[in-house]
């Protein structure tokens, strides 16, 4: 992990991620997350489901994008496999919007020719694919891509929780520090998975992620885009 990786992992990287709560806003509205203890189980569940998928697909995309001479077909396949792993249309939209914003910022920050070997997706690539492509352009490793993917699954909802629930920021950071080992383990497993065929990558799912996302999409007033 070096400065380049820290730049891409930073919540201040201008990819619009701060606008998304990854289901936390809906979980708070449903009365299921009121404080740090529930936030911890929420984050542990997210890490074991969305975190595993995001980390594995980011690492796999990074591997293909930087290591294969003609990555376009496999990158498209990875993106289709994420569609099959994302039942909720609201989550598919949120993932593609974040992917498009990330790739735009990534291209401007690290204008590497290897990105030209991959066609643009009309709706934007899914976020983990965009993360893998950006990591490749930045010269980062699959391990970096996996770790940044898993880390983002934790930090997005954690900072949303501080805003939504007025949680103590020190307590929230202490919680994230407690989850560091679990996050590292997810990233390590993702690196091992990254060489598998796209069909065999993790597909861990959480029923409430779909249910919360679809409920949230019907709200007229909301603080976060997802």
């Amino acid at each position, binding site marked *: 992990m070096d400065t380049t990786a820290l730049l891409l992992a930073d919540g201040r990287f201008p990819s619009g991620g701060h606008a998304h709560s990854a289901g936390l806003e809906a979980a708070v509205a449903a009365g299921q997350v009121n404080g740090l203890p529930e936030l911890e189980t929420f984050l542990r569940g997210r890490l074991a*489901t969305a975190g595993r998928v995001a980390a594995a697909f980011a690492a796999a995309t990074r591997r293909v994008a930087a290591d294969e001479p003609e990555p376009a077909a496999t990158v498209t396949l990875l993106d*289709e496999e994420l569609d099959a792993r994302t039942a909720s*249309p*609201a989550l598919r939209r949120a993932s593609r919007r974040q992917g498009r914003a990330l790739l735009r910022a990534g291209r401007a920050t690290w204008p590497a020719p290897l990105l030209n070997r991959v066609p643009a997706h009309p709706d934007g690539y899914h976020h983990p694919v965009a993360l893998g492509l950006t990591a490749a352009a930045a010269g980062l490793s699959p391990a970096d891509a996996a770790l940044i993917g898993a880390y983002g699954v934790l930090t997005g909802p954690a900072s949303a929780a501080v805003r939504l629930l007025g949680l103590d920021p020190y307590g929230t950071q202490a919680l994230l520090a407690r989850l560091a080992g679990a996050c590292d383990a997810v990233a390590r497993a993702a690196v091992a998975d990254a060489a598998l065929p796209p069909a065999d990558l993790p597909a861990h799912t*959480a*029923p409430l992620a779909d249910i919360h996302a679809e409920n949230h999409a019907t709200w007229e007033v909301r603080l976060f885009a997802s």
Partner: protein
Amino acid sequence: MRAHARLSAEADGRGGTRLSRLRAESPLLLRQTGATGGTVTVHLVGGAAGPLGGDDLRLDVAVGPGAALCLRTVAASIALPGRRGERSQYTVSVTVAAGGVLHWLPEPTVAAAACHHAALATVDLEQGASLVWRDELICGRHGEQPGDLTVSTRVRYAGRALLHQTLEIGPGADGWSGPGVLGGARATGSLLRVAPHEPPVAPRLLGPTAVWMPLAGPAALITATADTSQRLRDYLDAALPALADT
């Protein structure tokens, strides 16, 4: 216990369906229980309690062009632990040819305390095949916490991934009962409907914890959590009343 059962359904050329192969192996016992309106119904009759830790059960189902098969089970399956904590596995492989129809409507799987079970299904649909696929999971019998159970379902349509979901519950799955995954619900399930000849559905809320969603491919999925198996079934049935008495 190891068992490998095979079931094939073919169009009989007169608008109906016949079973061209029905090879059962205890505890996977298969009985044809009906044939109405071109659809053959087969029940899987549990020949023993289980699956039990150490079991390796396989079921292959093939539905030919123009054939229609409905597969049900007579009772819930209860995944139970083996004596030494061995894993049990139930692997289902399904193919449905163009113009074929499969309704897969089993009773729920119950994850008993200390079970260590995996239910793995792969479904390959040719272009023009139709499918209804129900999955229901109950987390523990009355008043008990479930063991480790994985349900993984992968469906391909015309050679492309349509739906791929893996749900893990139990002590080995971090955060599974929390607000990010099941929110304390004891029952969860889904109903996939692949209907290539019907227009796509719009997303719809069926209740506070049940949604009906169009997938990226020619299919829709209901996903729900509930306090009881009956409430779960109501959610899954409510959106598809025409299927309730299939």
